[in-house]
Each structure stands twice: as structure tokens, then as C-alpha cells.
């Protein structure tokens, strides 16, 4: 199954949905624990194995989960685990953990259900573009179905009980993944994020806690989980997204107006040229350049490229994806060469065709 997934994109990189030039995806996750087991930290190997098999068996019976494939993460090799991390289907924590652990994924990669992460269950639903309501409707329903099968740890005053007190209550994290290259170039990004911190929002890089903001992608999510309802938390994050979109659009307008335009056009064209012609290129530089090209396409500065193609390149040029696509394990040096080849193949310029015709 993982091999066939490699050539496609998954929901969050589809590149459609509302405001998808800036908002890549909307995501909601719920942290849940079974009432009759200790939290992961105090679980024995037997407990972990028992939680995994209990969840797997119970899910089998629900028709909502018939499209879910249950993957035993402990049995995967490093490359496959890294591959799932790159696709945002499992967390780094789950990939690097030890002992029985699993993930259930649906064919469209809209939902993933991690077993034995920091909590017994981490349910996640993703939607392309800015669509938190749709994500909530789906995950709420999935949560209801699981609750019919399994007994959640719940306290009448504290809500859903979680291993870390920062998640207790709703156990919910609402995240919107945004692409903000113009705010980065104009250096307004930190000011915006400092403002967000004051209103209890967290900003992280593409791959969650501690990850740097690769390719100008940022995740905006709620900090608190207790004392506000799910709808209020969704509103809290949802309300700032239009503001953020507006800021980014203004910064883009600024960059494309007057004299700045030449600088931006030059920068974007050079980025595109490098991606088309490099002989070896790191994953970081690829992300950095693709980000500029993506903005260039959105601003109409590059005409012969589609956003879905760029989104695909973002994921396919990551280390594990590149190796899966080449069906070969590669070291860093080999990867940098393969990555350049892959980019060349997929970003063929029309100029070379013209040259042939002449």
C-alpha cells in the first residue's frame, strides 16, 4: 500500500478548497485515552500490545472504518516510517517510539488514527484548503463511532483525560497550514506571530513541534484545550485565518507593485531556473525555492506551471519520498543528485522544446 501511495499526493497537498493559494490544509486532531489502561508512560509492553489489538478489533466491526488500512508501525522499516511522517499521517513521536504502535489510514488520506502515540488514540482529519467546519463534522462523527466501541477516560469536570495536562478537556488541536512567503520576505511574519501568541495561538513549522518553518509553511493552532467548547476553539483559530490571508495578500501586493516588481520577478525566475537546472540540490534549498516559485505562480509571474504540480514536488522531493519513488535507498549525496534529476524531469522548460524546433 505504501508504495502505491508514493506517487500520489494525499488530501493536504491536493491544492484545492477555499483560499488554497495561501491555506494548504485544515486539520483537527483529538487526543483520547482508554479508561481501563494506564497512560502510555506507565504502560507495560503487554498493555501496549493489548491496546493496539483492542483498537484494531473494535474498528473492524464499525462500517465507518471499512476503508481504513491498519498499519503496524513497529514492523515498518525506517524509510517507510519516515515516509508516513512526510505525508503527515503519523507524528515523528510515533515513528521514533518503541513497542506496539499502529496507524489506521483511509485511501484518500483524509483521516489517520494513531494508536499508542503520546495518548492511546490520536484521531486526525485533514481537509484541503480552509475548511475547518468540514474537518470538525467528520472527526466528531468518527469520535462518536469509536466511543460506541471503546470506553474513553473522561472526567465530568475535566473532560477527556490526556497524558499531558496541556491537552485535557476537549483534547482537540485545530491547525491550519498556511503558505506565507511574502510575509517572510517582508519580515512581517514575526510581528504577526507575536500577536498570535498573545491570543493563545501557537505557530509551528510544517512538521509540528520543534520543526523549522520549511518552505515558508506555518501551522497555526490553538494553545488551550480546556474551558472552551470545540466550536469556540475552531472559531478562535478560524477567525484569525482570514486576517492572515489578508496580511499575506497585502505583502504580495507590495512585492509586486512599483519597482519591487522587478526584484520579485527576478527572484522568482532565478528560483525557477535553479530548480530546472541544478545538478544536485538539498531538500532544504528545494523547499526554499519551490516556495518562491509557488508564490510566483499564484501571482501570475510564471505561466507554464500548475499549483498541484508544485505541491506534488514539495512532497516528492523529501528524502523518504524520493527514495520510495526511486525504489532504492540513497545516501544524502545520491539523494541530492536524484532530487535535481527529478525536478528537471518535472519542470521541463518550454524553451528547450523551442530550441529543438529551431
Amino acid at each position: 500500500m505504501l508504495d502505491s501511495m508514493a506517487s500520489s499526493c494525499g488530501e493536504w497537498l491536493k491544492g484545492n478548497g477555499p483560499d488554497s493559494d495561501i491555506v494548504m490544509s485544515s486539520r483537527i486532531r483529538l487526543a483520547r485515552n482508554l479508561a481501563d489502561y494506564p497512560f502510555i508512560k506507565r504502560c507495560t509492553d503487554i498493555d501496549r500490545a493489548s491496546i493496539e489489538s483492542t483498537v484494531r478489533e473494535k474498528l473492524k466491526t464499525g462500517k465507518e472504518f471499512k476503508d481504513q488500512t491498519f498499519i503496524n508501525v513497529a514492523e515498518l522499516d525506517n524509510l517507510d516510517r519516515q515516509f508516513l511522517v512526510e505525508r503527515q499521517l503519523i507524528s515523528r513521536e510515533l515513528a521514533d517510539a518503541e513497542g506496539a504502535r499502529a496507524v489506521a489510514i483511509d485511501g484518500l488520506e483524509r483521516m489517520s488514527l494513531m494508536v499508542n502515540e503520546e495518548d492511546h488514540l490520536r484521531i486526525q482529519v485533514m481537509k484541503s484548503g480552509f475548511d475547518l467546519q468540514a474537518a470538525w463534522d467528520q472527526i466528531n462523527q468518527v469520535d462518536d463511532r469509536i466511543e460506541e466501541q471503546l470506553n474513553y477516560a473522561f472526567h465530568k469536570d475535566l473532560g477527556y483525560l490526556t497524558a499531558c495536562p496541556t491537552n485535557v478537556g476537549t483534547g482537540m488541536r485545530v491547525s491550519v497550514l498556511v503558505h506565507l512567503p511574502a510575509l517572510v520576505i517582508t519580515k512581517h511574519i514575526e510581528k504577526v506571530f507575536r500577536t498570535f501568541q498573545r491570543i493563545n495561538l501557537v505557530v509551528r513549522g510544517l512538521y509540528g513541534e520543534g520543526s523549522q518553518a520549511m518552505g515558508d509553511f506555518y501551522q497555526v493552532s490553538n494553545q488551550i484545550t480546556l474551558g472552551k467548547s470545540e466550536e469556540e476553539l475552531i472559531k478562535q483559530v478560524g477567525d484569525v485565518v482570514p486576517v492572515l490571508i489578508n496580511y499575506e495578500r497585502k505583502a504580495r501586493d507590495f512585492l509586486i507593485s512599483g519597482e519591487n516588481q522587478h526584484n520579485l520577478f527576478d527572484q522568482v525566475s532565478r528560483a525557477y531556473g535553479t530548480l530546472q537546472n541544478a545538478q544536485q540540490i538539498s531538500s532544504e534549498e528545494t523547499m526554499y525555492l519551490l516556495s518562491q516559485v509557488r508564490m510566483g505562480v499564484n501571482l501570475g509571474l510564471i505561466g507554464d506551471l500548475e499549483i498541484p504540480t508544485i505541491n506534488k514536488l514539495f512532497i516528492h522531493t523529501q528524502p523518504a519520498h524520493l527514495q520510495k519513488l526511486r525504489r532504492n535507498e540513497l545516501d544524502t549525496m545520491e539523494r541530492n543528485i536524484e532530487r535535481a534529476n527529478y525536478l528537471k524531469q518535472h519542470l521541463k522548460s518550454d524553451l528547450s522544446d523551442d530550441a529543438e524546433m529551431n
Partner: protein
Amino acid sequence: MKCQNCEKPATFHITDLTGDELLALHLCPDCAKEYLKSDDDVEEAPTITGVLQQQLKLEQTAEDLKELDSRECPICGISFYEFRQSGRLGCPNDYACFAGELEPLLVNVHGDNVHVGKRPKRGSEDMEMQTETIRLRREMKEAVENEDYEKASQLRDRIRAIEGDS
């Protein structure tokens, strides 16, 4: 084009707009990383262990803290010390066992200590009944470790009986 800070080729072209004027920078990947990093002073969100440490410093004398640290949850056996070191609790009962310490922590982190969101549709949640299984599992593990297999098998039967009921 060469990097303006060193001799390597410049591949990063950054436009700085901190003031009113545009400042163009041409940097190699290494210098660019350094430049972007030095600017990245967005504060990290406070960690749970950090908040807790702050709170305990204000409220506890060293002796009190020592006593508190040695307190253990009767269900999962985690000590308060282990919790405050890792920031992770051991079982649902810890929320009751360490309620006095957790309440100010929750208010500190969330600004609130009462859940107002979704509730499971299932009827009455019997916390004690549920944590009972966790305690029995721990006792079973300890019995196995002490090679008291008779006790272990009795405990296993009791766990099965409880699980069968639910």
C-alpha cells in the same frame, strides 16, 4: 554571484523590510541559515514542566516539595516527582490523586479548569470501576515479577471478569 559574507555562491536572495527601505541580501545557504536563525526570536510556548516548576517554586517550601515528590498514585504508582520531571501523567486517576497541584497548573495553562465541550454519549462514567482495572493490571505485573503466578492468574481472572461486564 558570491555570498556577501563569504566566498561561496549565493543561492538565497532575501529582501529585508524591517525598516522603511528594502535591503537586498545575497547569501550562501550556510550564511542564510545563520541570518534567518538570528532573526527567529519568536518565544517558545511555555512547557508544562516549566510552568509547573515556576508554580511549585512560589507555593512550596523545600520540605513540602520533598514530601509532595514522594507521593504516589495508588492506581498506577507514578510519583509526583516523575510527573513533574516528564510532564506526563501515568493514568486517569492521577487527575484525582494530584488534583490539588494540577488545579492551579490547569488554570495557569488553560485559564480555566472546567470542561465545557463535548461529552461521551454513554451513560454514567464510573471512574472507580475503570481505574480498578488499571490497578489490577499493575498488581498482576508485580505478581509476575515476584514469580507469584497463582496470584497473577487470580488477578487476570478478575480483570477478565470486569472487562466482560463492560
